[in-house]
């Protein structure tokens, strides 16, 4: 039976008087309330950091997209399939931006079967091309949760133990057609330490609740398109690593980028190993990245060398993930009236017009709400703290 108490469902609660949020002031204008709501929505984007928790940096994520009949519904414009594929493209770009040494694979399910759209790979371009082509697929039949999870496990179980194995399912149908008992599959997933998360597009389905609870993932149902985007972006950050994942030293190569011009006597044109399999793009080129172990050539990083199996990355790829390891503390909020000094934001030199200001706990410099958002979303370091010479 269930170990956790079931949450009360929304229809079991009393009436929610949502109109009471909006309050008019004396002249009858809603301006103050609207500004307050906008301010709160900006603040909501700064999420809490995990603190000193070990994160799974090298991720192998399988994305399962439901292509069944229910995806033709038009509640997301123009239809659910097109809207989802567009948001997934943004997700793929952000995912490789924040996790450069991770890999992603896409599986589609329809007509009671599951098919691989793209293999597990570290290059975002292949996935985006495949997603753009997938917009034309015909949605028919029922999805099969069992078959898609089974297909994902086939590749994930061979992955080394120090990586995090994840599956993200985007399920819009309320039914699934499975050839065997899904509870057995859930036990297999748990033993393989695969974390499954689901984003539902229609309503909460019990099998998904059990699946995500047993494997340690999250289950959400979308309210509208912007909520869908928020939920997808939650999966971009690396998740906390499970205690049983192994830590090991991974052997990697750091090739030099050789830029050769036509006038260089020693430059020899060569084929890139990554393009040999595909029919297009097998061109001779002069420069590129040469694997330090076997001297095979590649045009882009990160890549796994096909000849000798060495993972090739460049130092900035690893540097991109450092801000996850050293997260920036949240700034303390205080009302603007308490500020004695000049009312200027120390980062952007703008006037402080909002009702609250943010100060960094270590250097006590003052920032406006826009700079606070920018610093926590993109910059990941306080501009005044890094001026301090003794700070490494």
């Amino acid at each position, binding site marked *: 039976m269930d170990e956790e108490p079931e949450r009360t469902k929304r229809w079991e609660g009393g009436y929610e008087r949502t109109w009471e949020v909006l309050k008019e002031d004396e002249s009858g204008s809603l301006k103050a309330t609207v500004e307050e709501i906008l301010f709160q929505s900006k603040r909501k984007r700064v999420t809490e950091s995990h603190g000193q928790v*070990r994160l799974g*940096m*090298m991720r192998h994520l399988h994305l399962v997209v439901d292509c069944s009949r229910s995806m033709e519904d038009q509640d997301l414009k123009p239809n659910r399939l097109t809207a989802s594929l567009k948001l997934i493209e943004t997700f793929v770009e952000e995912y490789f*931006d924040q996790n450069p040494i991770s890999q992603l694979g896409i599986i589609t399910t329809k007509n009671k079967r599951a098919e691989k759209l793209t293999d597990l790979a570290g290059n975002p371009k292949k996935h985006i091309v495949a997603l753009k082509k997938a917009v034309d697929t015909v949605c028919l039949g029922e999805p099969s949760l069992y078959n898609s999870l089974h297909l994902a496990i086939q590749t994930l179980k061979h992955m080394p*133990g*120090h*990586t995090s194995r994840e599956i993200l399912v985007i399920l819009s149908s309320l039914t699934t057609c499975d050839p065997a008992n899904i509870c057995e599959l859930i036990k297999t997933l748990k033993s393989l330490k695969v974390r499954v998360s689901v984003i539902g597009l229609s309503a909460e389905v019990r099998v998904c609740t059990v699946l995500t609870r047993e494997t340690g993932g999250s289950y959400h149902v979308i309210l509208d398109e912007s909520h869908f985007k928020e939920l997808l972006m939650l999966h971009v950050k690396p998740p906390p*690593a499970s205690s049983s994942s*192994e*830590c*090991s*030293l*991974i*052997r*990697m*190569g*750091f090739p*030099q*980028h050789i*830029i050769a*011009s036509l006038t260089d006597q020693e430059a020899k044109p060569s084929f890139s190993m990554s393009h040999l399999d595909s029919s297009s793009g097998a061109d001779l080129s002069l420069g590129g990245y040469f694997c330090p*172990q076997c001297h095979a050539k590649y045009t882009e990083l990160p890549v796994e060398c096909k000849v000798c199996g*060495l993972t090739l990355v*460049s*130092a*900035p790829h*690893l*540097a*991109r*993930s*450092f*801000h996850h*390891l*050293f997260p920036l503390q949240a700034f303390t909020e205080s009302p603007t009236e308490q500020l004695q000094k*000049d009312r*200027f*934001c*120390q*980062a*952007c*030199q*703008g*006037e402080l017009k909002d009702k609250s200001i943010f100060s960094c706990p270590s250097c006590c410099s003052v920032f*406006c709400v*826009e*700079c606070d958002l*920018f*610093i926590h979303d*993109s*910059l*990941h*370091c306080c*501009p*005044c703290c*890094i*001026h*301090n*010479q003794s*700070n*490494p």
Partner: protein
Amino acid sequence: MASEEEINLLVIVVDVNPIWWGQQAQRATELTLSKCLDAVMVLGNSHMAMSRTNKLSVIASHFEDSHFLYPGKSWRMGDSCGDDASSSGDGKYELLAVANNLIAEEIRKVMSKTEVRGNSTDTLLAGTLAKALCYINRVSKEFEVGQEIKSRILVIKAAEDCARQYMNFMNVIFAAQKQNILIDACVLDSDSGLLQQACDITGGLYLKIPQKVALAQYLLWVFLPDSEQRSQLVLPPPAHVDYRAACFCHRNLIEIGYVCSVCLSIFCNFSPICTTCETAFKIQLPQMVKPKKKKLKQPT
């Protein structure tokens, strides 16, 4: 009437490390700080003269702080300070005269007020670049939704790199790349690996000036055109950037190394414990083959 032209914002970051510039003055070379700032003002004026909608900002990167030379805070409080300076008799475009006077006044204030501590000749550029990015972020939010604003940052670097700011510098570079902001670099003295990486990743230009005396010429030739015009000009070729990683134990550049899966630190040799995060690694031992037990034949 909404303007159809796009707005180009140029942020110039000038390295005013007083020790390096002092050494330059002692060696009696021809490039002093005032000549360098003259060249910067020439570039700034030319940029603003190229189009009515171009915008400029100049930041000075000092020892432990950075100061906005232009536009100043008093600029916003009221234009009363601008009135005294605007009456230059030679009929110059008022904005250029005001900008030049403000820059000259602010740099005098900065150099006289800031006290010099220590004698290091490195500059902490990462903090100044972070402030520049915050400024660009604020300016681009102030315009209406339809107007495009294109920004780029030009760094004029004098002293050497400080190796301690590697991580912050990389964070700033990735933030700039995400916002599509180019970082160009004009290096006066010694080559800077950090700035070479910044220019490579964001798509800007890196140039080490062969003759310091001709600074203004190089600035106008290479760094005045914006990114669209650069494709039609013959500009210095991109420098070869060394992206090899340095190992954490010896600081050597290595081609093949071992990376800890928890903290991503790089080592040149296999070791059973990671020195940064102190996790013990699982070592792959070869499979033990159990010797077959031979049954002793009992004597009958």
